[in-house]
């Protein structure tokens, strides 16, 4: 597994971890952020700001539950609106975490060790945000459990032929397995915190969470096996989740949705937006917590490369969508792509092309890939672009379908925005709390990257 691979440094921008670190120093540095670092004004201010934005969710959801989904901008024909746009956007963001923690583990990419914990936390919080939308979209969230198969007095069962039900299983499995994988990864680090904590309360808390982990070699052997198996299971899972999300669209017969390219194109888009979000969050965290010796320029460079590669796949997806529209010779498909480009939502489409295809081309430059400030700006643009992509897919297909008599326009209301910004607040609150209470970098995997960690057995006397 994640054995450090020796590659000539010339092909990389700097090392995976800066020189001068030892087993003890990485433990103290990362653990110290949780155990020793004083609470700063900046952190309090950030948390309060995020907490204020979170209130939008409380207000928006309350009003929605009182009045019903009519307070949103949805109508007939635009039955989906913001709820599905934001659901797909959030769940896509989550995918980078699983890619980093599972797929890069299987591919033996040791640089992932410094960023996987943070990215996985981001996954969990993003999936939480995603999950709220379909549940609120039902209009009666207190009855959401009806989506699960259980014997009931109504003698009703869910319809397993529906992609919407596949989604329930895919998203709940994704959340559960991500949480389990994350917790398994945390165990040894919680033990480190337990053993370095100074106060009784922190010792007890981390001690209880660490479940008595004692770094035994016999335990490590099973632990590594379980991690590898979880990574192996999470890899097809992450691909399946966005595939199933794309089935919500592709299995229908709406023009622009009924295409076979949707699953791979959605998965690439998910990884694209996820890496953009990892960059958005990591660049400031790395700066404020002085972690640039652990999350080095090489990490930023690598993440920027993945962003660029997925941007190109997404660009291919857009091109193919347009080509299919033309080549299908189907009136409705042709009209859909035409309407998307020059119809009432044309500014959304062309802004999306600008954000998602043109902007990432800057990442061909190594200089830009290793300039945190510019990279951060590009990541924000990509986040916006990927949100627009989901808006364009959902709205431009729905608002003008087969019959002109049933056409309509969709504009979000203030309550749509309240719930959406509220989930952004929720996400940021979770991130702020996470960086203070759990080690944001996997300490034990960081130790494996150190030059002194390799086994050099002394010659037997």
């Amino acid at each position, binding site marked *: *597994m994640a054995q450090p691979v020796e590659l000539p440094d010339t092909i990389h921008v700097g090392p995976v971890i800066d020189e001068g670190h*030892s087993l003890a120093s990485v433990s103290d540095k990362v653990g110290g952020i949780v155990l020793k670092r004083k609470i700063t004004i900046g952190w309090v201010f950030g948390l309060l700001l995020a907490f204020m934005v979170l209130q939008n969710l409380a207000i928006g959801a309350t009003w929605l539950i009182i009045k019903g989904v009519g307070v949103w901008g949805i109508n007939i024909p635009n039955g989906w609106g913001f709820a599905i746009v934001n659901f797909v956007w959030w769940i896509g963001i989550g995918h980078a975490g699983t890619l980093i923690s599972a797929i890069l583990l299987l591919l033996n990419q040791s640089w992932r060790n410094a960023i996987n914990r943070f990215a996985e936390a981001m996954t969990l919080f993003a999936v939480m945000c995603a999950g709220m939308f379909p549940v609120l979209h039902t209009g009666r969230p207190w009855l959401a459990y009806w989506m699960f198969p259980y014997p009931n007095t109504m003698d009703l*069962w869910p319809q397993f032929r529906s992609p919407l039900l596949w989604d329930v299983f895919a998203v709940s499995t994704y959340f559960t397995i991500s949480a389990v994988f994350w917790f*398994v990864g945390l165990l040894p680090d919680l033990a480190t915190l337990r053993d370095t904590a100074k106060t009784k309360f922190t010792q007890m808390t981390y001690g209880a969470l660490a479940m008595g982990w004692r*770094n035994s*070699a016999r335990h*490590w052997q099973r632990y590594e096996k379980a991690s590898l198996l979880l990574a192996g299971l999470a890899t*097809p899972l992450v691909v399946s989740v966005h595939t199933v999300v794309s089935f919500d669209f592709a299995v229908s017969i709406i023009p622009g949705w009924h295409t076979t390219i949707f699953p791979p194109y959605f998965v690439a888009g998910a990884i694209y937006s996820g890496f953009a979000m990892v960059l958005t969050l990591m660049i400031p965290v790395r700066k404020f917590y002085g972690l640039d010796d652990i999350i080095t320029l090489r990490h930023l460079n690598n993440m920027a490369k993945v962003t660029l590669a997925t941007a190109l796949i997404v660009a291919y997806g857009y091109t193919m969508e347009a080509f299919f529209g033309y080549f299908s010779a189907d009136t409705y498909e042709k009209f859909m792509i035409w309407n998307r480009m020059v119809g009432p939502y044309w500014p959304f489409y062309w802004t999306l092309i600008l954000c998602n295809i043109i902007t990432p081309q800057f990442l061909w430059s190594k200089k830009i890939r290793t300039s945190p400030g510019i990279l951060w700006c590009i990541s924000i643009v990509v986040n916006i672009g990927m949100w627009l992509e989901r808006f364009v897919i959902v709205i431009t297909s729905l608002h003008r379908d087969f019959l002109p008599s049933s056409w309509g326009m969709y504009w979000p209301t203030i309550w749509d925005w309240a719930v959406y910004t509220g989930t952004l607040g929720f996400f940021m609150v979770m991130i702020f709390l996470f960086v203070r209470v759990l080690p944001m970098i996997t300490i034990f995997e960081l130790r494996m990257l150190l030059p002194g960690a390799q086994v050099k*057995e002394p010659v037997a006397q």
Partner: protein
Amino acid sequence: MSGHNHPHQNPLYGLVAEFETPGQLVAAARRTREAGFKKFDAYTPYPIHELDGAMDLHDNRVSVFTFIGGLLGCIGGFGLCSWVAAVALPLNIAGRPMISVPMYIPITFECTILLGGLTAAISMIIMNGLPAPYHPLFNVERFAGAARSKFFLCIETDDPKFNHAETVGFLESLGAEEIAEVPR
């Protein structure tokens, strides 16, 4: 925490030796196994794959359980869809067969992953004997280093070959920096 003393039980859990480098520890673990000790363990701040060879660790049960869990999830997921759609609530949806195999694949797949993944994590935790809030080794103050930067080898008194004086001598011959008694 010394209330665990039974009349015939050794008041010591074992002897723990501290090593500075992973290489020394792997060599020590190999020699301990070759000397015929069975009940001993190494403690390291990160997984060291060379120890699996040195200590002859090849417990594969987590994989077996995970496979069984995944298989049950697979059968259960498909069975659930089929039973619900064909027995509990048969509905004719556009003339499709009651057991519409392709449409049940996503849920079958998700259930496979869910049960497989949960089994992997839970079987690892259970077979490692966790949660175990108390362990004699935690009585040794220096042992906290195993979660930070130090490498330890503990030979337990339950081992038939254990003899206090001889084992101390053996650990010294391995080049241990410090040797401590582990009270129960």
